[in-house]
Every structure is written in C-alpha cells, then in structure tokens.
C-alpha cells in the first residue's frame, strides 16, 4: 500500500482516528508522517505511539478545567505534573494514576474505549483484594443486623470479620 500523501513510498503507519464519533483513516510513509507535524507530533528519533498519544492528551474536552491554571495538577509521590505527563505520554510512577484520576477516564476512553480493567488479577495480591472486598461486605451486613437488633448473627459476622482481618494482616 502506498502513502496517501506522496503516493510514492509504501505506507508504514496505519491508524484510525476517532474524534467525537467521527472516524478517519490514515496511511502514511514515515517521511510524510513526520512532515505532518500538526497531525502527528514528531520526535527526534521518529514518531511513536507516545507522540501520537500526547496529541490525544492535549485534547481537553471543552468547558473542563477552565480557571484552574494556578494549581498545576501534580503527582505528590513522584512530582510529575499533568502537563509534563501530556508532553511525554508516560506516567512517572503508579501513584500518578491516583493523582490524575479525574482526567484519566476521558483519556483511557479515547485510547481503549474503556476505563475499567476486567482481566487477570495477581494471584497473591488478588487474594487480598478479594478478602478486603469480603470484609467491606460483611461490615455493611453487620450494621444491618445491629439495626435489626439481630445480635446473635451480628456476633457471628463480627467474628468472621476479625478472622479475615487477622489473616489479611498475616499476609
């Protein structure tokens, strides 16, 4: 397939851009892709998915975040600001996901069409996640039983919570 721009060199970059549900397709050779700075921000050693992504990151939905210029959004763990992140397209540490969470749903939706993970959960850490979820559920149930003055089963639930918390603390 030839580049849609110069029509001479083979196209090596193929991508589909979807903005507000409007889909456009692009097929460029590397040289033409570089020239199109306004479409694909280029980098010194060729463009990459990161530079493509930073184009997406700069795109802020209209009306969002106006008037918040004085306090730059920053990750308190590693110090990376959101604007630095949108320039390099990479996070500084895993806590960035928490500090930037307000802005991430939009971004992840554009990149993946989704915002929530549904795949593999780590084996060991996963057990803890499941235990924590179970404890939360039991605590809610405990409150309910107490409200209903069903103290006998409330005591059983309390013991179960203690047992789970003990096991969680032991890892």
């Amino acid at each position: 397939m030839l580049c849609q721009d110069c029509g001479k060199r083979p196209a090596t970059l193929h991508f589909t851009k979807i903005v507000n549900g409007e889909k456009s397709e692009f097929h460029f050779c590397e040289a033409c892709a570089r020239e199109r700075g306004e479409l694909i921000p280029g980098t010194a050693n060729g463009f990459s998915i990161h530079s493509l992504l930073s184009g997406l990151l700069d795109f802020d939905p209209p009306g969002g975040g106006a008037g918040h210029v004085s306090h730059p959004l920053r990750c308190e763990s590693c110090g990376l600001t959101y604007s630095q992140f949108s320039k390099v397209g990479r996070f500084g540490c895993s806590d960035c996901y928490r500090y930037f969470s307000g802005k991430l749903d939009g971004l992840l939706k554009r990149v993946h069409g989704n915002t929530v993970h549904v795949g593999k959960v780590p084996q060991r850490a996963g057990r803890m996640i499941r235990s924590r979820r179970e404890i939360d559920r039991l605590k809610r149930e405990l409150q309910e039983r107490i409200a209903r003055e069903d103290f006998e089963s409330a005591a059983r639930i309390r013991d179960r919570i203690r047992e789970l918390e003990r096991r969680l603390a032991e890892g």
Partner: protein
Amino acid sequence: MEKRRFAREAISEWMRHGGPDSDIVISSRVRLARNLSGHPFPMLATNHQAREVMEKLTGAVRAGKLDEIGKFDIFVLDDLTELEKQVLVEKHLISPALANESRCGALILDRTESVSIMVNEEDHLRIQCLYPGFQVKEAWTKASRIDDKFEEAVDYAFDETRGYLTSCPTNVGTGIRASVMMHLPALVITQQINRIIPAVTQVGLVVRGIYGEGSEALGNLFQVSNQITLGQSEEEILDHLHNVARQMIEHEKAARRRLLAESRLRIQDRVCRSYGILCHAAVIDSKEAAQRLSDVRLGIDLGLIPDVPPAVMNELLVKTQPAFLQQTFNETMTPEQRDVRRAEMIREHFRKFRYGGA
C-alpha cells in the same frame, strides 16, 4: 573473546521447529508489561532506585523462581558490548529502547531464546514469550505462568479499577501485547493487502513491519497485534487477534492457490529468478535481499523450490542485518561493503543446498 551463546546463531533454537500454519505464520508473541509497587517507573527512577528494581527482579530468578520454566541466563546491559546489544535487537530479543536508552537494564533470557524478559525498559518488567507458527494462546499461557512466578517474589503495581499499572497509558489494564508475524507474499502480489490492512486496523488491531513501529513490511512480513489493553480480558483480546489472523491466513492461502492455478508459470519464473539472483549476486542491498528471500520462501511453500528448508528466510534476514554481518566478518563496514558481504553470506548459505543437499 568467546562469543556469547545468543551471538553465535542467527535464529533462535525455538525457531528451528515449525508450528501450526508455519507456512504463513512465522511466529506468535505475547508480551506482558508489569511494574513493582512503591518504585517509580524507569523514566523517573534515580540510578539507585533503578538498580534496586533490577536486583529485586534478577534476584528472584537467581533464587530459582523460574527453574520450573527453563534454564535462564541474566545479562546486565552495561556489561554487553554495543555490537552484542545490536545483535540482540536484530534477533528481536530486546527492544532498541532497552539497548540504547535504559539505565540498569537487564535481559533474562532462556537458553532456547523463546522467553526473553526485559528489566527496566519502559516498564520495570517486560515478559516476552515467543512460539513458532500460530500459537498465541500457548505463548500467553507461558507468559502468564512466568508472571505468577515473579508475583510470588515481588509486589506488582496493580489497581482494582485500572488493572496492571504501566508507564504508558496505552498498556494499562492487562499490560498484554499479543502479536502474530505473518508472511503474506501472495496478498501483496495480488494487491489484496491494500484492502486488508485498513480492515484490520478498523477492528482495533495494528499492522506493522517486522522491525516494529514505523518500519516497512520488509520481506512481505507483517506483524499484527492488539491495540486495546483495558476493558477486555486477556482471553477476549487473544480470541479477537486469533480470529482476525485466522482470516488473514485463509485469504493468503486462497491467494496462493489462485496464483498457482492462474499464473503458475509467472510465479515459478519469479521465485526461481530470485533464487538465481541470491545464489549468484555479488552486491545486494538489504531491501532487495528481503524481497528475494520472500520470493524464495514463497517458492519453497508452493513446492516450486525443492531441497531448501523454509527457515532459510528468517535465518538470512537476521544474518544479513548490519550488526550480525559485522560480527560474522569481524570488521566494521560501510553500507557499500555491507552489500558485498551480504551477497557473499547469502551465496555461501545457498551453496549448501545446491550441492550435496542440507
């Protein structure tokens, strides 16, 4: 200095064995991106922090965590020569980023070279499994087992909502990149590829050349991989890739049948001419070599060129890359000198099959 194991052979041991559909699918690959919790990602890590991550991960391997999987060697990038690093890149065992930009980078490589684990590339840990032929699910099963082994020893950066947290938001969630490398000469000859690539990109997959992002489809080799990593399970991602790749395989097979049925003489002429050129050329650039090797491989798969093993294409594609040529002939070369050495290397290689058989 004695050459390291990985530098001796151009094709990895795992590639010598064929796999399902290996007349079209060269290899299947699954890569998992993981990070350790409580450590900044490699981009922002201090040298000390990067070293800590490297020691934790290589320490887990030294402590025998991967013993059930295979026999692994650990290479610290700073201990390798530039040439060795380039050879690893040309064999697709490490990325150019690990070779050129990493701090405290390491490679954990199994002896058959079917598992290569990069430390401190863009993410702390990149587990890559390679299988010959069309075996993406097998590659995932193995990568996932290795993943579990590491998780016994280290705490991963994982979030209940976002999944595995990665340096780049394009990898977050499953952290999986699965890809299938296909040889599609008949789709290129019949120009059907021009319709297929846009169709594949529309269903959320990416098509690239063999040397990654932005590279041309050298030797009619195309790499198809998933783009989405969040909001779909690994199984869904693999099923999707599998189904699309399966359709591409069927199209390529149909195109090959049609070429044979409708223009047998023309295709025979084409592949045999290329074979002749490879056997006798005195100067050949890498682009022409890749195209001729693709023709010969097609000729082998169509039964038009007997007595040459199919692995010859991949082996020579790697052997005729700049770093590999340089280490074989033990001299630095200008691009022009390289074209001469490349032709020499290919002639020698084919001589084996023409006289006395392989």
